[in-house]
């Protein structure tokens, strides 16, 4: 395996002069790609050498290589979870995927230093502008590595560490190693094993005790190359009493072949800490998005996942919280929109492991056309615990008779000193409702978006403003596109 240059995306070259020149978040979804020359390329297919190549270009310590090789063995030995999950997983061809592509391993600290061919992608997605407006720090990952990473001085001075995983492993090995792979063991599932073997990029965040980061930190994950697999690895540690909001956005161009995104995200909220993790994903519908996300909440800590899944061919993602300390709180707010040809298989896991822990799950799914959504949940409260509470609410909205929704809530509660509540509903946007809105002057597409936005309104209100606006815009685009 050698360093090869000039690996091109096969999407049609993007014509700058024809494109909307407006920079900002109000661009159409990320369906564009620029030609980029990659200096580092692990080639196609997954072999032991692929893993060694990735580790060597990153100049990793021996324990990490060992960790990776071990994970590769696990990955190869584990079966696809098709006994419970969709058979579509079998269509992922691991031999045709490229596992590592980058222009270098060190992100730039200013946008000016970011190479033009990469910078224009992020400018078009509006990232530098958002950073100026309301973020405490940004990391922008392009294929395998972060191209840009910066944190505002005022935040850095408080001792907050915000880096990508490649850098963090080099610069903060002691703290990284202490928490890494502990919340989600390598063999948790086949895709967490895959990620553990080939991971690259993703954020590493450490917030010192008592530090409350006022503005959000954001990561943006961009896939640019065709037949590519993105495997970022994120580890966030909020020390005692610390508070943090982290947001991630993601896009990819629409290729005719499939792209794989398989991340692992681990959160650790120590005593009294609060982590809020917000995802607004907008994958193109050739992306297999198979992500494992889990956090551990210690005593009186709180972890809240807000997960908005729009786009992708197949998303399988069940953010979880292990409620490890007394009075820990966990929450998953999940919104999934499955349009034609898409399957959103999402849900939540709440593992209660201490007394008086509480969890809340609100999942709303929207299925359009042939789109399919599935909710899978696990709530586990063992018998010896007392004073635990869970509330689960799953609502599905169907936008025509072809779409399909399934709910698999598995709630295992033992003992009688705990309290759970579960509600589920399925509703339809019927023709009468659309006609009613059209009669007031709205087009069919506008009527559908309004109805969908109404359905998720109570959840979207909990988001930071910029993100609820972005979510609304994405839904408008999806719904406009879904009427004939």
């Amino acid at each position, binding site marked *: 395996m050698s360093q090869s240059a000039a690996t091109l995306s096969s999407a049609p070259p993007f014509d700058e002069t024809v494109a909307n020149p407006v920079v900002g978040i109000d661009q159409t979804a990320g369906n564009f790609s620029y030609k980029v020359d990659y200096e580092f390329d692990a080639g196609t297919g997954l072999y032991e050498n692929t893993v060694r190549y990735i580790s060597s270009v990153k100049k990793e310590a021996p324990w990490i290589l060992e960790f990776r090789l071990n994970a590769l063995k696990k990955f190869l030995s584990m079966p696809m979870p098709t006994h419970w999950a969709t058979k579509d997983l079998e269509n992922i061809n691991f031999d045709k995927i490229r596992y590592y592509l980058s222009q270098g391993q060190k992100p730039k600290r200013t946008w000016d230093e970011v190479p033009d061919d990469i910078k224009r992608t992020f400018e078009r997605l509006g990232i530098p502008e958002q950073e100026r407006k309301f973020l405490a720090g940004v990391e922008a990952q392009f294929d395998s590595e972060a191209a840009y990473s910066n944190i505002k001085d005022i935040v850095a001075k408080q001792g907050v560490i915000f880096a990508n995983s490649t850098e963090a492993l080099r610069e903060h090995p002691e703290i990284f190693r202490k928490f890494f792979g502990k919340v989600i063991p390598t063999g948790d599932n086949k895709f967490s094993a895959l990620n553990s073997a080939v991971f690259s990029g993703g954020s590493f965040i450490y917030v010192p005790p008592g530090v409350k980061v006022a503005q959000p930190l954001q990561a943006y994950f961009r896939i640019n190359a065709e037949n590519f697999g993105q495997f970022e690895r994120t580890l966030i540690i909020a020390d005692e009493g610390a508070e943090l909001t982290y947001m991630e956005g993601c896009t990819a161009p629409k290729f005719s072949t499939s792209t794989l995104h398989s991340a692992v995200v681990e959160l650790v909220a120590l005593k009294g800490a609060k982590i809020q993790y917000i995802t607004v994903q907008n994958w193109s519908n050739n992306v297999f998005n198979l992500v494992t996300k889990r956090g551990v909440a210690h005593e009186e800590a709180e972890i809240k996942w807000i997960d908005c899944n729009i786009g992708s061919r197949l998303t399988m993602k069940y953010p979880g919280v292990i409620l490890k300390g007394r009075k820990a709180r966990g929450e998953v707010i999940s919104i999934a929109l499955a349009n034609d040809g898409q399957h959103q298989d999402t849900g939540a896991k709440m593992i209660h492991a201490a007394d008086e822990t509480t969890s809340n799950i609100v999942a709303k799914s929207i299925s359009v056309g042939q789109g399919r959504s599935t909710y899978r949940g696990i709530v586990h409260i063992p018998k010896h615990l007392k004073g635990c509470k869970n509330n689960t609410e799953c609502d599905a909205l169907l936008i025509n008779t072809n779409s399909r929704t399934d709910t698999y809530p598995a709630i295992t509660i033992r003992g009688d000193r705990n309290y759970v509540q579960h509600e589920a509903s399925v509703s339809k946007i019927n*023709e009468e409702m659309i*006609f*009613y*809105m059209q*009669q*007031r*002057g709205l087009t069919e597409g*506008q009527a559908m978006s309004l109805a969908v936005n*109404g359905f*998720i309104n109570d959840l979207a209100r909990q988001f930071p403003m910029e993100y609820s606006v972005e979510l609304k815009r994405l839904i408008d685009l999806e719904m406009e596109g879904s009427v004939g």
Partner: protein
Amino acid sequence: MSSLVIQDLHVAIGAKEIVNGLSLTINSGEVHAIMGPNGTGKSTLSKAIAGHPDYTITGGDVLLDGVSILAKEADERARAGLFLAFQYPSEIPGVSIANFLRAAVQSRMAEGEEIDATGYYKKLYAKMDLLKIDRKFTARAVNDGFSGGEKKRCEILQMAMLEPKFALMDETDSGLDIDALRIVADGVNTMRGPNLGVLMITHYQRLLDYIVPDYVHVMWDGRLVKSGDKSLALELEAKGYDWVKKELAAAVTA
């Protein structure tokens, strides 16, 4: 001056013909009342004019200011000035009245033109005051959990905000209590004038005491079988539909 002309209209649902050769011309400034027994096709007529996709026009035409609207989508008809106050208004969970009406008002503006929020709320509050609707309602989801009467009042609020050329009001009086009926009627009377034509579907004379129609029509089996002035409604109230039925039978045998 505008006109809404219904020419020999035939409307079917599936294979079943419901409206059966109905003709009627409404000019702006006029209020027409249509009365008729249950199931005779009154709501079908109003929804077909508004462009409901389930209703097939099998014959005839509907012209707004001389131009056929039948090829237009429901939303185009609405923006052209047609308003339907529904007999059974839909509920739209999660969408507030203020946002819904705002989107409706915005849809009538030119591309690129933005609604003036201050002016919009001022107008909305004025119309709510007119219809004695509590301002708290702006934050409530459209018709969601509304009482029957509240839904009807909300329809008239929308009509007042959207200022149509022609309003088709389908049993707006049903479900209203006595006070609400008067308030809604006062509201409609305020809107009444040279710029508005009204087609009012009702079963009860009482509404016509408040909103006095220029013309009254009786609908029977998908057609208008009798027309007259407001006195026809009084006669109907006194004699019932059997009277119309007998007259019809006599006319057929004669």
